[in-house]
């Protein structure tokens, strides 16, 4: 349940939500990607690569940020602030090292089991069967963002149905709060008209501009539709009717990698019999973290004239699995007579409807970027607060410097003027107090809400 490690940046999304989304099959799993793929590869070549694929990308061991030798060890005289920063850095570093270690351990365990499974022929719970591997990876698609190859069941953007892997999806987020662009340019234009140098951070930034700070929902990277969200059509899922395999992707590839001969008679198998005969059942509830494909239970069963693959989540109960089989056997598996060139999947009504229209962001099937990062609103308010404080400070400095200038201008010390300075300072302090009080109030309100929510749950 962890990303492969394409991106070095911190995982700042809500991991719990994402994990549950994957379990609920609303988001594609973090598949282990293939670095390369060639449709001319033989089945054996593909297999040998798959069998040696690492669970996670290798860690750059000596990232500069985490290199312990770079951390100075002397902070006796240094400021408290600096010490704090250093401490947090050391903490992050130790976390990082720990992560490397855990990941290595997991990989080694996985390698051991894999060896036992593939070479010595033992059945291991967490090791995917060869049929599953081949079936998942036989027609991989390239994620257009990280350029890695994934099994052909990726998330699709809700608006334009473009594929995106989960690892890239969780990286997409709102931009940091910023002033609206239009205002910026009009600002520049007014500057232009008065032919003064551009100075967007001019002293006249009032409270209203603080409220103007906006945080827009992330746009679709492909078609720029606001409120980016994705849907996931899990293979053989009853909710969406049929698998997430895109028929046009399918037809463009020759079917030369299909792992098992698919017979002309696709047979309706009732579920119990298939699961009873099933040798390759990977039930991997136990070790969720070990294997990134772990959500998918492979059940493959070949008989003389039938074959069926079911990838279903281990948590789904057998009822839904059997239902999904009944629904999908017909639609999902092209029979070999039509599989030659245009192996169009028999599309179900639901699937066709889905293909034609985009879904609204509010649809329960759609996972938006805000949903996995529910903290954007608090970020926005805190950014507004910060700006407000900075404005107050800036105008205070500005005002006092004006006053000082005046002082110097009139070398005589005027009593009334000092009074007004004091007055002004007093007002500044009051304003600053007011702002921080407001902030505190806000925080408390939020906390209360949070508690309320907690109680509700």
């Amino acid at each position, binding site marked *: 349940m962890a990303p492969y490690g*394409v*991106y*070095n*940046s911190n995982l700042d999304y809500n991991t719990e939500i994402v994990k549950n989304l994957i379990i609920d099959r609303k988001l594609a799993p973090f598949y282990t990607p293939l*670095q390369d793929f060639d449709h001319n590869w033989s089945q054996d070549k593909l297999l040998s690569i798959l069998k040696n694929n690492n669970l996670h*990308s*290798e860690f*750059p061991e000596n*990232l500069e940020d985490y290199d312990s030798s770079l951390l100075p060890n002397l902070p006796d005289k240094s400021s408290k602030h600096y010490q704090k920063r250093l401490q947090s850095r050391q903490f992050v570093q130790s976390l990082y090292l720990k992560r490397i270690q855990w990941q290595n351990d997991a990989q080694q365990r996985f390698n051991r089991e894999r060896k036992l499974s593939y070479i010595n022929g033992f059945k291991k719970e967490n090791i995917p069967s060869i049929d599953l591997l081949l079936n998942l990876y036989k027609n991989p698609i390239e994620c*257009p*963002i*990280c*350029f*890695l190859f994934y099994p052909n069941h990726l998330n699709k953007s809700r608006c334009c149905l*473009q594929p995106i892997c989960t690892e*890239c999806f969780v*990286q*997409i987020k709102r*931009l940091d709060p*910023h002033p609206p*662009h239009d205002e910026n*340019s009009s600002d*520049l234009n007014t*500057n*232009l008209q008065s*032919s003064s*140098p*551009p100075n967007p951070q001019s002293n006249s930034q009032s409270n209203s501009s603080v409220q103007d700070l906006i945080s827009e929902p992330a*746009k*679709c*990277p*492909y078609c*720029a539709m606001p409120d980016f969200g994705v849907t996931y059509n899990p293979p053989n899922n009853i909710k969406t009717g049929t698998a997430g395999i895109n028929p046009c992707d399918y037809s463009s590839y020759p079917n030369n990698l299909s792992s098992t001969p698919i017979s002309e008679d696709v047979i309706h198998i009732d579920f119990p019999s298939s699961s009873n005969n099933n040798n390759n059942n990977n039930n991997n509830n136990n070790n969720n973290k070990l294997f990134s494909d772990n959500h998918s239970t492979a059940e493959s069963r070949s008989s003389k004239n039938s074959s069926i693959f079911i990838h279903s989540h281990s948590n789904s109960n057998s009822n839904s699995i059997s239902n999904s089989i009944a629904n999908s056997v017909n639609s999902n598996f092209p029979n070999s007579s039509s599989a030659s060139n245009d192996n169009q999947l028999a599309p179900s009504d639901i699937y066709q409807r889905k293909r034609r229209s985009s879904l609204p962001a509010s649809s329960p099937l759609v996972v938006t970027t805000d949903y996995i990062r529910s903290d954007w609103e608090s970020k926005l308010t805190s950014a507004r607060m910060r700006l407000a404080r900075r404005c107050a400070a800036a105008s205070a400095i500005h005002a006092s410097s004006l006053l000082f200038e005046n002082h110097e201008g009139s070398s005589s010390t005027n009593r009334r003027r000092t009074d007004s300075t004091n007055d002004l300072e007093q007002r500044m302090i009051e304003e600053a107090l007011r702002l921080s009080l407001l902030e505190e109030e806000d925080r408390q309100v939020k906390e209360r809400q949070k508690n309320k929510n907690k109680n509700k749950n």
Partner: protein
Amino acid sequence: MSLPRRIIKETERLVSDPVPGISAIPHDDNLRYFDVLIEGPTQSPYEGGLFKLELFLPDDYPMMAPKVRFLTKIYHPNIDRLGRICLDVLKSNWSPALQIRTLLLSIQALLASPNPDDPLANDVAEEWKKNENTAIETAKEWTRKYATEKS
């Protein structure tokens, strides 16, 4: 530090299938740093010029836009004296689905159609709006002066 697959593949594709009029070559010692050459588009004041740019892929590329800057002096309302470029796809409209290739094409398009209404170099933009012909002449002159020596 190992380079993300995406950057490796993009670089390979830039080399194997270059965009006409644009070249981007990574530095040997830093594969995130590219030397870029863009030909001035035909029928623009920059025609005949060869403009040098630097392009840097930040750590969080492709989630963040590359950093691009003109190294050759250029007279353009959306490019300032330091070579910084005012272009939406470099800022808020960046999308991870864009690539180095598409970005450089956008910059080339910006040369073909300057936008003085959203200026970065205010003096240039003002001139461009008030007196377009003179501005275009200046742009041509700068192109001759700064963008044709080295090639």
